[in-house]
């Protein structure tokens, strides 16, 4: 059940043009303004303005105590966020990329996700950890991996992946209101995504998947950087008379089984798009759940479009080849639809 129901009140003011990056920044500004317990810490979040410029200008507005530059000590500053959260504050820890978060994995897995249970419910860790994920910018193998599926396997944390301006703007507030740790993955290719948003933020939930496009013939399931590709693939399929429904997972843990199952029960075919490596991926989990929960609704084997099992290479053509592309999603949908009984 949604803890943060979507607000549908009509807006009167004209929408504003913005970007994913600016939407995230506004969400931070709101949080810092409205709650004195909130503070941001991470590498280069202050004077540099954020390595992806999300926090640009926040130091000037909120000062060094609340926008804290940290040393390159992922484990210590993530753990410091955990400790401050234990004490009742609402820290936002920014880790530059998911690749670097491996240096903080002990704190995230062994402490943030574990302390509540291990203490018999005595402790709460109301912490938000944000990090960039994903490839597509020729940054090679140590800056391009999609490890969010690993995090999605950990009990005790909530995992979010905003793929739209609305979610970039709206997910932080409910994440901060969550009494447990929330990890937010921002896909590196999305920061410059532009569009319009209402002047007043629209409340979003952090518990459900969203149907981004309705369709009847096949369900394309994607998240983060994969959503745009799935939507493009749906456009292409529409020109051929194939009606694709597109689901944005949004919440990678806990997965919204109901939305996925309901869609597949209508379309009877599914394609899961995931930039991460296929083996043991989030896509594998989604497929397993479809098979467990909607096996008799399926008219075709579930398709997966995943990243190639290779450390992401630097040259553009090889990187492109390693990642799911629109044409791959279309081809998978063709296979699914072609296998119709």
């Amino acid at each position, binding site marked *: 059940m949604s803890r943060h129901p979507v607000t549908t009140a009509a807006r009167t003011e004209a929408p504003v043009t913005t970007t994913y990056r600016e939407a995230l920044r506004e969400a931070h500004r709101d949080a810092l303004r409205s709650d004195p317990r909130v*503070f941001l810490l991470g590498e280069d979040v202050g004077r540099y303005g954020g390595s992806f410029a999300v926090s640009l200008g926040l130091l000037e507005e909120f000062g060094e105590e609340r926008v804290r530059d940290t040393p390159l000590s992922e484990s*210590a500053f993530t*753990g410091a966020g955990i*400790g401050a959260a*234990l004490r009742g504050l609402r820290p936002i820890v920014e880790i530059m990329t998911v690749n670097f978060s491996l240096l903080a994995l002990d704190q995230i897995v*062994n402490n943030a996700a574990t302390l509540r*249970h*291990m203490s*018999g419910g*005595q402790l709460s860790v109301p912490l938000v950890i944000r990090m960039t994920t994903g490839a597509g910018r020729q940054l090679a193998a140590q800056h391009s991996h999609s490890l969010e599926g690993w995090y999605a396997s950990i009990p005790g944390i909530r995992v979010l992946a905003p793929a739209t301006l609305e979610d970039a703007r709206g997910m932080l507030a409910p994440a901060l209101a969550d009494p447990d740790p929330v990890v937010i993955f921002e896909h590196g290719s999305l920061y410059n995504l532009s569009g319009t948003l209402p002047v007043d933020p629209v409340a979003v939930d952090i518990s459900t998947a969203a149907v981004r496009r309705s369709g009847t013939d096949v369900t394309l399931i994607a998240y983060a950087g994969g959503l745009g590709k799935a939507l493009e693939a749906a456009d292409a399929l529409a020109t051929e008379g194939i009606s694709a429904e597109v689901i944005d997972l949004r919440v990678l843990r806990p997965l919204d089984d109901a939305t996925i199952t309901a869609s597949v029960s209508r379309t009877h075919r599914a394609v899961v798009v995931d930039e991460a490596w296929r083996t043991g991926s989030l896509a594998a989990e989604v497929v397993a759940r479809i098979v467990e929960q909607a096996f008799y609704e399926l008219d075709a084997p579930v398709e997966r479009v995943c990243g190639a099992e290779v450390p992401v290479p630097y040259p553009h053509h090889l990187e492109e080849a390693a990642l799911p592309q629109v044409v791959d999603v279309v081809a998978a949908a063709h296979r699914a639809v072609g296998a119709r009984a």
Partner: protein
Amino acid sequence: MTEELFVELFTGLLREMIRIRRFEETCAELYSATRIRGFLHLCIGEEAVAVGVVGALSDVDAVVSTYREHGHALARGVPMEAVMAEMFGRSTGCSGGRGGSMHLFDATRRFYGGNAIVAGGLPVAVGLALADHLTSDPAVTVCLFGDGAFAEGEFHESANLAALWHLPVLFCCENNRYAMGTALAREHAATDLATRAAGYGMVAWAVDGMDVLAVREATERALAYVRDSGQPCFLELRTYRFRAHSMYDPDRYRSKDEINRWKELDPIPALAARLVDQELMPAHDVEQWMAGVEGEVDAEIAAAVAAADAAPLEPVEHLTRFVTTEPGDARPGVRAS
């Protein structure tokens, strides 16, 4: 200080060390009898650190500890019954039975574990102190860890961060000379840990960790310094564990001679001797008093074991409780700022 106050201080420290020693000995027996399971790490020999450090704290201070933390928890005032019930995996345990020996928690006493990842508690301690700093709370966060943790990156990251941000953390390195089975000189290129910690711009010094009076005095000085300056401080408490690393450890890596030499420094008889040497109590009175304390402590332990034995197990239906917060869950660990 008057003579009466000295006697009160000495006997208070001695009593608490005896209490921890007897508790640990009982745990070893209960482990052999398969009543306690999992890993069990005893602090026998290191009681002066638990009593000298933790006993010097005030209620507002926080403690972050390791998996060898029974003594720290008892010295912090976590009820013995709750600690024993935790070892038995009972729902009345101080962590609801979910943690066991290595994960003792007591949020109301600001005892934050019970961390079994070596050095894993240190960043959390820095964060607790950061929250105190941000909310102008005068508390000090004390984190206890061993010489093994000093080799972990998390120690060095945490020491740097606490010093850089001027946070009220008291780092207490319980140097018992072995990282599990690896001797200090085989794990550290430079074995003077206090000197190395001072390299982070912290006040740091080494203390005889077998002398509870020295540990107590150093801790009081360090706490006063941290409270007054808002800066972190580092104590290296040189101590020794008389028992093996854990109940699984055959203790092949050190000689009986070495162990026996350290046993001559046993903090309990050492303090008892000082009562006599400083003419605070005649030898015969000390013996009698100690026998009395042992009787009282044994009765407390027996009651704790009986209570743990009689305590309920958590119903299996509650298996997934406390993984995430459920509607209506109390959140006693979180204090509004």
